């Protein structure tokens, strides 16, 4: 991706950095929310994470990534035309549900 190769040059396109940061933030906040729900009970008896919670969080993040990979493959099977192989032909896919 061009936003990563530009790191090796002196000039970095600030728009790409902002966009990348925004995407990482939203991705991160999703995982934080989901894993909190799965791993951290709401009684809040103490402020520190205990060992069990730490292990659960590690596994939760890894599992979320595994789910993303698996579901990405499933989606590609279901809608093989929706990821354009060439950017010039950016036609909306009529079979894709639109929101």
């Amino acid at each position, binding site marked *: 991706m061009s936003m990563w190769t530009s790191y090796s040059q002196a000039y970095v396109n600030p728009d790409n950095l902002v966009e990348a940061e925004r995407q990482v933030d939203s991705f991160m906040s999703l995982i934080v929310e989901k894993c909190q729900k*799965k791993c951290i009970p709401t009684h809040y008896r103490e402020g520190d994470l205990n060992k069990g919670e730490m292990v659960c969080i590690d*596994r*939760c993040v*890894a599992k979320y990534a*595994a*789910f993303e990979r*698996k579901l990405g493959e499933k989606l590609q099977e279901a809608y093989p035309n929706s990821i354009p192989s060439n950017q010039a032909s950016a036609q909306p896919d009529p079979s894709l*549900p639109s*929101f």
Partner: protein
Amino acid sequence: MKDFLRLYSSLVQRCFEDCANDFTTKSITGKEETCVNKCADKFLKHSERVGARFAELSQQMAPPGQ
């Protein structure tokens, strides 16, 4: 492309929330795999149906002649 990404994001969130319950391991268990396959199929069919009904509604609400 944006719609696709939004669909992907909703799909992952929904299926992770409903199917990821076994945190004794980092990888997806057999039970979770079955759940995720069915979840994905159901979610996609559900999205398509909602889209179809929404399109019908929009057409009904549009003034005649458009």
